């Protein structure tokens, strides 16, 4: 007993964020400390991605006010600081939603991010799960003061599966970190500088790495989107379910979210946590491989675990009803095994969701010729 000498555990730093005090180990950033508290206190982050080393410090949306630097030096920091790049000090007092300066600064940052953004949310596949949309609604101002023509780019195919809309890009660099840290050979990055900076591949080299699809998941806006899902459906009309499969690729975790409509799998993504980042399992980030993401588009490829938990305030949960108990079909019992006579089969009347057309199986966006299947029934 006597020889058991307790080693002094590393002293935790006490930090107060919006009047909530929390103890975190030294080296934690303000953003991560705020994420441990959770809720409204957490600053939004567009470029910081906790699963990608080196990310952060580019978009400035996570600006916070530091009212007292530390117990040793309680002077406030003269300017707002990026919380993803500033580490906590013992006795630091941070103001986020209680600050007067922060909402104003953040509205300015949103205005800058949206300067060249085309605001084409009605045609963008990311709409509904777009971080820039959320940020604009929560922290932006209605209307724009920008009078000049916006920066435009031609949309680019990078590889067979990924569509790049450079007009929507906010240059967060997350996708290049994915390429650096997850895939073997990086073939894309940022070319040119300043206003001309653009994400591109090296002389239109196709991205055919096994894990390149993860850059779709990390993209906070609709700049990198899934070409196999392009224009197929809106995010909020598909039903997300958690599913897994035994993937042959040892680096792939095989756990994904399927976005279903009926029995059709429209899209496969990695599972996201509450910060919109790819979930971790036992400390390992659950990246999924391109085979899981783009080629396994049938429910029989997957073991479905159940509905994905969706925030009550998200549009993805709109018009979806959680049936607690499915009542038994009584009609067949009552009618002695006969099926009920239908007065109207919706497929005879409606051209939408035609059973003969499987849009989810197309590897590209649907076009007008895909819909002309029944020459005698012209639905157009």
């Amino acid at each position, binding site marked *: 007993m006597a020889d058991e000498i307790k080693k002094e555990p590393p002293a935790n730093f006490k930090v107060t964020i919006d009047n909530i005090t929390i103890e975190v180990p030294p080296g934690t950033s303000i953003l991560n400390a705020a994420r441990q508290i959770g809720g409204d206190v957490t600053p939004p982050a567009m470029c910081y991605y906790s699963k990608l080393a080196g990310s952060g410090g580019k978009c400035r949306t996570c600006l916070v006010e530091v009212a007292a630097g530390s117990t040793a030096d309680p002077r406030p920091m003269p300017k707002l600081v990026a919380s993803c790049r500033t580490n906590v000090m013992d006795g630091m007092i941070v103001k986020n939603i209680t600050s007067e300066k922060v909402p104003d600064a953040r509205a300015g940052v949103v205005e800058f991010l949206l300067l060249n953004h085309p605001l084409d949310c*009605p*045609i963008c596949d990311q709409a509904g799960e777009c971080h820039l949309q959320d940020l604009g609604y929560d922290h932006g101002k209605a209307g724009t003061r920008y009078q000049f023509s916006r920066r435009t780019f031609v949309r680019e195919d990078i590889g067979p599966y990924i569509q790049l809309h450079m007009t929507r890009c906010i240059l967060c660099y997350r996708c290049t970190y994915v390429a650096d840290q997850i895939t073997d050979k990086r073939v894309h990055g940022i070319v040119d500088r300043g206003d001309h900076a653009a994400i591109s591949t090296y002389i239109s080299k196709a991205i055919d790495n096994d894990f390149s699809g993860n850059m779709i998941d990390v993209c906070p806006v609709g700049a990198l989107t899934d070409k196999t899902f392009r224009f197929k459906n*809106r995010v909020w009309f598909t039903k997300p379910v958690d599913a897994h499969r035994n993937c042959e690729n040892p680096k792939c975790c095989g756990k994904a979210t399927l976005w279903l409509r009926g029995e059709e799998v429209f899209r496969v993504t990695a599972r996201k946590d509450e910060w919109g980042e790819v979930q971790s399992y036992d400390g390992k980030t659950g990246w999924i491989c391109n085979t899981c993401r783009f080629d396994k588009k049938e429910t029989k490829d997957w073991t479905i675990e159940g509905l994905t938990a969706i925030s009550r305030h998200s549009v993805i949960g709109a018009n979806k009803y959680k049936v607690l108990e499915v009542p038994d079909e009584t009609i067949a019992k009552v009618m002695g095994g006969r099926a009920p006579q239908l007065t*109207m089969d919706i497929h005879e009347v409606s*051209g939408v969701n035609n059973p003969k057309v499987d*849009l989810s199986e197309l590897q590209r966006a*649907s*076009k007008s010729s895909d819909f002309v299947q029944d020459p005698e029934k012209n639905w157009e």
Partner: protein
Amino acid sequence: MQALTKRVKAVHRKPMSFAEKLYLPAIFKGMMITLGHAFKKRPTVNYPEVKRPFSPVFRGMQILNRDAEGRENCTACGLCAVACPAEAITMEAAERQPGEEHLYREEKYAAKYEINMLRCIFCGLCEEACPKDAIYLSETFAPADYKRKQFVYNKSELLIPNPKEDPEAYKKALGNRAIPTTNSLDQQ
């Protein structure tokens, strides 16, 4: 027994007086009311021949709008369908191909767009949700029909006539309360 509310009225069960027993005064009183209506203004409107004026906020059958060049405004963003409380609207989107620029205004368009008029409650939320000026509730009634399947309206029934090909029908479809569009989106 205690009354549940204070508005209880006791029923009078007094025997009728002589004047009441005659019934004739009451009959004449009733006849006078009937006769009085014969000289009043008739409220009936003989509908197909005579039409009542619509209120300026009347919400009738939906119409899918085109821009001044006759291109469809709808981009199948799905906001009308998600706003629809009756879940009457369904659509399928497609990508505009080269050569189809004169048909659709944007890169994505509604290849299929259907409104189930059996479900529609004419609340006008689709019109409010639309970011592209594409759907409006017009001053027309949805026509009656004998078959249920006639009530699933697709694009051919919903689209406004093309202003380039049929300017007169387009002008008629615009109605009285349409504000001339400037197509502010095109000028950007």
